[in-house]
């Protein structure tokens, strides 16, 4: 990835004067840090010889057993042997792509899609074809059309990559009734489903929907993560895959990193065993809901000319700007105005999305969110004035990855 102009602008977003609605950093301040600190101390004193040692390439067995319990909350019945622990689910994404994708192979993904996944697919020289979503997630008919078209063109589709719950960046959730439909369509075309589910337990108003993996063990590779439900600093995620794939995943993981961090895995294992982690997730949900509400209220007040979805979980609101605006070319103005967001084009493989932006509400306080949206509205007004004066926006095509690094708030 190259140092792009846009990426340089994001470096200003790390300054406290800027309200960053750009990043995806969870609200770690909401964790009981004293309690976790004491747990970590005891872990090293009591089990340091294991925690600080090499571990198994597949991941620590005790943690894999606990992961099975976590996944049961979303209807998955798996065996600990089915689980491969990885360095964040991002590594699982990379390993799966490495195993399945040859240059030129097609990955079908939602429009828009998670920028981190697009980066992995790009690195492995896959071609990503987007398929549309609506308020209920992937649209089965459109998915079928896309797959039929690709088949007719003789293109080889390796998998469907989907974030079914509280989509990043779309904010929507694949409805219960569409889940089996999507699985059936993919099965019909011999296409595997890569189900990426970091946000599934972070719904605001309801119990989690059954994971797609719970409906098709053989047709789905499932990716899970502790980054949003606990803490991303440990870098612990996992994959659940059919047996044949799992063996390859373990070998590929060993080749890449020997084994995931034992210290991190045991830290999470200790946390799950000794802390009220379900209660903590409930707290997170309440905190994030408050922030979502603050963002939606501010959008209603300050940006009535824009449109957006109201997410019922997760971290993101996907905002459509008035026609004619280009979110990427507006970003320097936003930085001057002390507010940051991610331009929509980052979430597409093919340059779409220029009049969209992703706003995240996970990290800033409700007051900051309100102030950020207020500033953003001023920036949009100014940009609209310029665009109206000249009758065009300042956008130009760019093949670069225009996304902040993960440590941007």
């Amino acid at each position, binding site marked *: 990835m190259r140092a792009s102009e846009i990426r340089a602008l994001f470096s200003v977003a790390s*300054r406290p004067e800027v309200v960053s609605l750009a990043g995806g950093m969870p609200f770690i301040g909401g964790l009981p840090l004293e309690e976790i600190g004491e747990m970590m101390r005891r872990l090293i004193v009591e089990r340091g010889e294991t925690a600080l040692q090499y571990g198994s390439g597949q991941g620590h067995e005790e943690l894999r057993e606990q992961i099975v319990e976590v996944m049961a909350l979303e209807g998955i019945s798996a065996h600990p042997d089915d689980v491969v622990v990885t360095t964040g689910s991002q590594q699982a994404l990379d390993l799966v792509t490495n195993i399945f994708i040859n240059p030129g192979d097609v990955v079908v993904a939602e429009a828009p899609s998670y920028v981190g996944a697009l980066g992995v697919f790009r690195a492995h020289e896959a071609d990503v074809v987007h398929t549309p979503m609506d308020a209920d997630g992937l649209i089965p008919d459109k998915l079928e059309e896309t797959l039929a078209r690709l088949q007719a063109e003789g293109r080889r589709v390796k998998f469907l990559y989907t974030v079914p719950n509280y989509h990043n960046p779309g904010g929507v959730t694949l409805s219960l009734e569409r889940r089996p439909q999507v699985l059936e369509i993919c099965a019909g075309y011999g296409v595997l489903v890569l189900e990426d589910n970091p946000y599934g337990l972070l719904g605001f108003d309801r119990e989690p929907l059954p994971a797609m993996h719970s409906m098709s063990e053989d047709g789905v590779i499932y990716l899970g993560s502790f980054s949003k439900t606990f803490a991303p600093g440990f870098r612990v995620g996992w994959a659940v895959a059919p047996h044949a794939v799992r063996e390859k995943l373990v070998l590929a993981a060993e080749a890449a990193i020997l084994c995931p961090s034992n210290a991190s895995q045991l830290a999470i294992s200790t946390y799950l065993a000794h802390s009220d982690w379900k209660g903590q997730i409930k707290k997170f949900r309440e905190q994030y809901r408050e922030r979502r509400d603050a963002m939606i209220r501010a959008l209603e007040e300050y940006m009535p000319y824009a449109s957006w979805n109201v997410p019922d979980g997760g971290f993101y609101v996907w905002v459509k700007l008035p026609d004619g605006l280009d979110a990427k070319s507006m970003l*320097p103005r936003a930085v001057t105005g002390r507010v940051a967001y991610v331009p929509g084009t980052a979430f597409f493989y093919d340059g779409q999305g220029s009049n969209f932006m992703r706003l995240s509400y996970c990290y800033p306080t409700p007051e900051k969110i309100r102030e950020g949206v207020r500033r953003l509205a001023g920036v949009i007004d100014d940009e609209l004035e310029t665009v109206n*004066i000249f*009758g*065009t926006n*300042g956008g*130009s095509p760019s093949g670069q990855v225009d996304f902040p690094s993960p440590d941007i708030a």
Partner: protein
Amino acid sequence: MDVLILAGGMSHERDVSVRSGRRVLEALRGRGVNASVRDVDASLVPTLRALKSGVVWPLLHGASGEDGSLQALLELTGTPFVGTSSSRARVAWGKSVAKEVLGRISISSADSVSLPQTLFRDVGAEQVLDLISERFSFPLVVKPASGGSALGVSLVTERSELSRAMVHCFAYCDVAMIERALLGTEVAVSVVGSGDAAKALPAVEILSNGPYDYDARYNAGRVEYFAPARLDAESMGAVMSVALEAHRELQLRDYSRIDMIIEAGVPHVIDINIAPGMTETSLFPQAVRASGEDLGALCERIAAEALHRGA
């Protein structure tokens, strides 16, 4: 000697500044200088007040770092600092003013016009753009009237591309400078020292595959540099002399970088930098290397001279 480097800031060039700061920090520490680096924020004034000795090296790029504001603050607090004074920085920062000053001593620059966005709004953008395209021949360069690192800059080859370039530029700055694109060899000449003691370093030549934009500047491989530039002795002498005259005429202090394009044998100044980039791909460090001097030794000397000069 204590040196406090100021890097980062809130401008669009924050990232470059942070990298420049780190580079100078390492160079000075390598010489045994007690150097440290910090960002510019609300605790800056108390920090400056508490400074008992030493010198401040402002390495902020872009607005507030190069427009004279930070220098004015340093002058207010009576802190010795590296680089150009606030009043001279203000002159060098405004591209059109600096052009005018240099024009008085017959230093060429591209034919240009600087216009604020409000003018386009008040009299109608299309008519102004028509005037521009009648008055200048394409290709044109549209760039923010202040700022650096090629942010907001577009090369425009025909009238139909002009509107988009203006919008891109106005996202960075309220005033746009539209100038005739110069076609020729691009060189950067770094100058070290002040007044009569100033000295030009060998010119560095920039051969860019495509536009020499932000991406080209800060990614290895997009651009080929020749340090020293592949110029005959006469041309090399000419560009070094133009840079030195510009540095003196604008009363720049300690160090600067004057960018030029040699078109039909004539060097035209295109940019003046009073806090030139110091990153691993930046031109100033390349010029220092080409001159045979060690960057650390030079930075130490620059800081020592600023300290000696005092507040």
